């Protein structure tokens, strides 16, 4: 589904990532973990087209998508969420999700201004689609609330609903459990599994080790900008290098 090959990123002389390669299997939940400063978020930003990497390539469904902007990647079926949720704060929850269906609709400036019959029909479909994802994430009752006024946990759900509305084949989540309490985190774990059950490939960067070990099919460990290990949760837990990286080099 997704292949990252030889990614290197240098910021003004500082090497944030060095020759990182791994592949993500279709329909699996893959976790990217590592201590602070390991380069996880940078990697995400490169894969999702927000940064342009110094070297290396990214392949999506076998085709080279290196350097494509996020809006093109969305049309190719890749979408992401943000660590510090990026909602459209001035719009309602429903409208937020409706933006997610942007690529599933096509009415332009003229058709929208004139409210052509087909754009009205499309509008109905957009609304219905958005409502479906609100229901999937369990925030239907918040549909008319202004997104900027949502509590953090609900905002996180909205962001996921909005990303799902793009109907992606792969979704990348940047620390989805950050800022959630333990109850919200276990709900999130179930939600992520339900997303996988829809056939959507999931990649997450996460600090919450319990969550990662619990739901991930495969794990990639980064440390200091390099890939340290890759394997099933069990293999990772038993990997001495990983344990050393987390606990410090002395052990």
């Amino acid at each position, binding site marked *: 589904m997704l292949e990252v090959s030889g990614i290197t990123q240098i910021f003004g002389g500082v090497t944030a990532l060095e020759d990182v390669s791994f592949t993500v299997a279709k329909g699996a939940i893959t976790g990217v973990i590592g201590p602070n400063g390991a380069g996880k978020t940078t990697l995400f930003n490169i894969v999702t087209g927000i940064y342009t990497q110094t070297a290396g390539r990214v392949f999506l469904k076998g085709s080279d998508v290196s350097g494509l902007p*996020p*809006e093109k990647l969305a049309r190719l079926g890749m*979408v992401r969420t943000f660590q510090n949720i990026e909602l*459209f704060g001035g*719009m309602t929850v429903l409208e937020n999700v409706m933006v997610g269906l942007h690529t599933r609709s096509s009415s332009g400036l003229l058709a*929208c201004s004139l409210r052509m019959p087909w*754009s009205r029909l499309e509008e109905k479909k957009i609304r219905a689609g958005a409502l479906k994802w609100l229901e999937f994430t369990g925030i239907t009752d918040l549909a008319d609330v202004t997104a900027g006024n949502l509590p953090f946990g609900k905002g996180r759900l909205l962001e996921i609903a909005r*990303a799902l509305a793009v109907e992606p084949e792969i979704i990348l989540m940047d620390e989805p459990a950050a800022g959630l309490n333990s109850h919200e985190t276990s709900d999130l774990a179930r939600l992520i599994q339900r997303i996988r059950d829809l056939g959507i490939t999931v990649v997450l960067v996460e600090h919450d080790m319990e969550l990662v070990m619990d739901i991930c099919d495969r794990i990639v460990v980064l440390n200091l900008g390099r890939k340290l290990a890759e394997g099933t949760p069990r293999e990772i837990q038993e990997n001495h290098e990983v344990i050393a990286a987390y606990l410090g080099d002395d052990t």
Partner: protein
Amino acid sequence: MLKFLAFAGMILLAPLYFKGGYLMNVLVFVGIHTMLAIGLNLLLGYAGQISLGHAGFFGLGAYLSGVLTATYGWNPWLAMPLAALMVGALAFAIGFPILKLKGHYLAMATLGMGIIIYIVFNETVELTGGPSGLSGIPNLAVGSLTFDSDVKNYYLIWSFTLVTILLTLNLANSRVGRALRAVHDSEVAARVMGVNARLLKVQIFALSALISSIAGSLYAHTMTFVSPASFGFNFSVELLTMVVIGGLGSIYGSFLGAALLTLLPEFLRAAQDYDIIIYGGLLMLMVMFMPGGLVRGVPDLFRKLLKKGGANHA
């Protein structure tokens, strides 16, 4: 839709109340200014991109229409759409480099663009008549009906303005309008959702210039005379004031702002030269105390007052 019909009814019946007279002429300007404010609001209020050069697009529409009809004898109904398309295309072309800039830099760049256009109006004397202006621009006419009186012009201008309001309301509540507001709130998230933010901003810049150009053509054909002084930096600021006072991202707000700023100087005739101070003061006060504009600020104020009143009674 009901709101729009009520609004349109009010506008169409207004002349009965004012029975011609001087104020009709002012209301013609309210119509033109409403179109301009809406055009700018699409860009500033919805897409969140500032322009301090919109008087330039307004002027281009006016001059293109004026020169094509007065000098080259074109039919105004042909000149107007051609002018609009040319101005829209120009804005589309400028839009790509200029909208790469953000915030203060965008403000300065659009300002520079407006001033360059203004200088061109002044300096291309053979074409525009230079600082002394261009006269002899024909009125618009349909068959034997020539729009040459205040009341006729009122209906002419306001039919265009109402259509503009209707179309932009539609746009605001559509897929494109949502995408615009999304870009405004978080450009990166909008792009992740598949919105081509750059193209969308440029498109809306062009649309907003096109609306300004049509307003300019209408201005030229109702005034029958244009001169560069109407299209300078001060007018761009006046437009900005209308949009901010009315309310960013509200179409009816643009009407409110345009009406207020057009009518105010008429009531302050005595303070003629000093209306500019009032603009400046209003602009600052609004940003400081009512950043949502009149359409949001006034209802909020009422709500607060009611709450206070309620609390006192209890």
